[in-house]
């Protein structure tokens, strides 16, 4: 409190004043009054000096009644003000109010304690922008004054805020003519006081007051209130700053951790679908968003997304969100775009009405945050977070989203680069395989060609005359070698069909016995000289296969068995059921297959080194083709073998139905 003048005098006056007394009346009017222990000084002391403002001695200089009334009025106001000050002081120590509530309470106390008919506080935001945040009501505000949206601060408040050298004593500010107080005509004016602390202005307190009669004491009291409120506002701002900093720091830590996790996800996961799913979940968790989607589109095929990851969204919602046109809404690269889901039916539709309605009412979504995803300078997809009505994104969260958008873009880039690298590697591998295959094919074709060329050129030689029998023998060999060439060519064709996946299977419901019955003559020829045993139980279930191709597999295996085993040894064809499969096996007592060859014998042109197969007319493709046919039927083929003891080739066929 500022004024300590005239102690002695005050005491005297107070004593005299008590006896004639508007004070008891006043004190009865206010509840806050009862607490005599409050620290604003002894009532009598302040009341005394209020009654005797410096330089004014009402008793001596203004003895007239009106003068006394006026003084009494001032005293009354000061007393009310003092009580208000106590109420405000008590209110200020109440913890955790918002600046707005604090301002409102201050004004309310000022009005209710009947100091002033009208009081309001205009708050400014901490950066100093004149942001009008709170007004208190009071009787006498002009009718067009809207408390919830006061608009621009009044010129008086703005100038008080802007000028740090302005008098801190209450200044008459009603001169602008835009004062919201309606009753200037009643002889009242407006006084503005800065609510400041350590040179920082938080707002302006304005009261409606009979300006002519304001005493210095009243000014002092108003200043005291302003200081208290200013300090409280300052404290609140500091507290809020601190709170915001703590929150921001916590979020910053969460964001950093999330970005780390995303980077790790991108580094570790090769599959784009897994990676994007993990990234989306990290973002959802970090920003506490439930509904989200990432959709990726191919530049060439715009109609359907190549990849879509949605969380807590129906396919229809996902589709509608993916279809939102971004052109014209785009900001900078990878900048999130906020699309409010306006319940106003006149706003432009960004989603089909039923979907929008469902999102707004059922899922309580208020806005969409769309983030274009870019890779190598092109938009390849988008991420969309659906923000609920009770949730907002802070600026740092938006920045976090921007970062993640860029990282997802990088992930795409990495994925596409990996794809390119994998493709190149595959092509290289294919090229190597093709070269190897060409060499094998050319070698296989050369063998019968050598015989054909050799025999033909033999017959052309005119220096010798061949007898008819030799000539016939040569021609017969020519014929056989041509057949062999044909067989190799058709095997190659079959092989390439199998590899290209274009071999057509003409499947029918049949039995293994039916197939072997059709092969009877061929089998008899193949196993000629061997002991052939066939064990196919008659009660085996039906199979659904291409009879001709299955027959080829059996012929291939039996001709191999015959080629690699001595005459007189046993060759057995067996079949049995094993769960949902039928297992067919061909066993021989031949030379067997050394371990190092077992992994390779199903490859093209892979032969155990022996002329035996050639004598049998093998093309080196039999096992590779058999494997292809079996696998195309959904089965497996394998071999068990022991060198010198023989081999057993087995394959499975799924049972029909």
């Amino acid at each position, binding site marked *: 409190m500022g004024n300590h003048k005239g102690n002695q005098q005050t005491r005297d006056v107070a004593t005299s004043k008590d006896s004639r007394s508007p004070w008891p009346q006043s004190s009865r009017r206010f509840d806050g009054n009862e607490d005599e222990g409050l620290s604003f000084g002894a009532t009598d002391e302040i009341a005394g000096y209020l009654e005797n403002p410096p330089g004014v001695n009402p008793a001596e200089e203004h003895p007239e009644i009106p003068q006394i009334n006026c003084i009494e009025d001032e005293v009354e106001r000061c007393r009310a003000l003092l009580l208000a000050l106590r109420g405000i002081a008590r209110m200020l120590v109440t913890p955790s109010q918002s600046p707005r509530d604090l301002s409102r309470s201050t004004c309310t106390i000022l009005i209710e304690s009947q100091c002033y008919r009208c009081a309001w506080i205009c708050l400014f935001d901490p950066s100093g922008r004149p942001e009008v945040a709170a007004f208190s009501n009071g009787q006498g505000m002009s009718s067009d004054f809207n408390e919830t949206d006061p608009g621009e601060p009044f010129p008086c408040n703005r100038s008080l805020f802007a000028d740090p050298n302005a008098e801190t004593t209450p200044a008459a500010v009603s001169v602008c003519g835009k004062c919201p107080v309606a009753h200037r005509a009643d002889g009242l004016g407006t006084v503005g006081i800065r609510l400041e602390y350590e040179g920082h202005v938080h707002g302006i307190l304005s009261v409606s007051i009979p300006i002519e009669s304001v005493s210095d004491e009243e000014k002092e009291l108003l200043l005291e209130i302003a200081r208290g409120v200013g300090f409280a506002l300052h404290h609140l701002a500091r507290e809020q700053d601190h709170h915001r900093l703590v929150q921001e720091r916590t979020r910053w830590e969460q964001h950093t951790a999330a970005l780390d996790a995303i980077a790790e996800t991108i580094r570790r996961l090769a599959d784009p679908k897994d990676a994007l799913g993990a990234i989306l979940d990290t973002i959802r968790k970090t920003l506490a968003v439930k509904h989200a989607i990432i959709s990726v589109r191919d530049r060439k095929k715009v109609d359907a997304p190549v990849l879509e990851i949605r969380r807590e969204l129906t396919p229809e919602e996902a589709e509608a969100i993916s279809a939102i046109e971004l052109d014209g809404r785009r900001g900078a690269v990878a900048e999130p775009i906020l699309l409010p889901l306006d319940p106003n039916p006149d706003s432009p539709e960004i989603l089909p009405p039923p979907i929008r309605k469902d999102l707004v009412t059922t899922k309580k979504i208020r806005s969409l945050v769309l983030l274009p995803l870019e890779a190598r300078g092109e938009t390849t997809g988008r991420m969309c977070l659906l923000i609920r009505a009770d949730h907002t994104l802070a600026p740092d969260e938006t920045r976090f989203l921007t970062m993640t958008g860029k990282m997802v873009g990088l992930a795409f880039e990495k994925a596409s680069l990996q794809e390119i690298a994998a493709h190149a590697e595959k092509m290289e591998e294919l090229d190597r395989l093709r070269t190897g295959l060409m060499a094998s094919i050319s*070698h296989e074709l*050369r*063998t019968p*060609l*050598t*015989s*054909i*060329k*050799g*025999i033909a*050129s*033999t017959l*052309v*030689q*005119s*220096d*010798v*005359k*061949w007898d008819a029998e*030799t000539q016939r023998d*040569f021609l017969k*060999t020519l014929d*056989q*070698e041509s057949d062999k060439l044909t067989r190799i060519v058709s095997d190659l064709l079959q092989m390439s069909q199998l590899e290209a996946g274009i071999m057509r299977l003409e499947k029918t419901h049949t039995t293994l016995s039916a197939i072997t019955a059709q092969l009877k003559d061929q089998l008899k020829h193949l196993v000629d000289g061997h002991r052939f045993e066939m064990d196919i139980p008659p009660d085996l279930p039906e199979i659904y296969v291409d009879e001709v191709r299955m027959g080829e597999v059996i012929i291939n295996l039996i001709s191999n068995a015959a080629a690699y085993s001595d005459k007189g040894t046993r060759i057995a064809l067996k079949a049995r059921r094993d769960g949902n499969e039928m297992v067919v096996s061909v066993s021989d007592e031949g030379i067997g297959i050394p371990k190092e060859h077992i992994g390779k014998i199903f490859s093209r042109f892979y032969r155990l*080194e*022996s*002329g035996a197969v*050639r*004598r049998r007319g093998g093309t080196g493709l039999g096992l590779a083709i058999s494997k292809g046919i079996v696998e195309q039927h959904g089965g497996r083929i394998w071999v068990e073998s022991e060198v010198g003891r023989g081999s057993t080739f087995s394959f499975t066929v799924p049972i029909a139905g």
Partner: protein
Amino acid sequence: MNESPANGDRPVPKVKKMSKERILVVDDDPVIVKFVSANLKVRGFDVITAEDGEAALAAMEKSNPSIILLDLLMPRLDGFEVCRRIRQFSTVPIIVLTAIGEASTKFELLSMGADDYITKPFDIADLLTRVRAILQARSSGGCSARSDS
């Protein structure tokens, strides 16, 4: 077989006083062995055959041929190894007869001591010409290099 004079339109060098030169034909393809042998026999050569590398080395030891026609890709012991081993104790002319057409293989075999290299498929006249050329060169140049007697 009977020895008949060259009377065709294809130029087959004539070898006078063709003694029964012995030729070892090594190939795992029986058809090739058959028609090559027939052609050589009909022109007065003595022919022995082997269907793999080991049989070739055995025949070499037993029969002392004047020339070897050697396939490369064979079971048990391949032509490369056969050539290498023969060169350790003999300078008998070796004509490689193979489906491998690569220049590098040809160079490898020639540097290992093979005398000629014919790629399959081949014209029988070509083979006969080379056989005769090598035998003629050997007989005119003497047999100083031979050490297999």
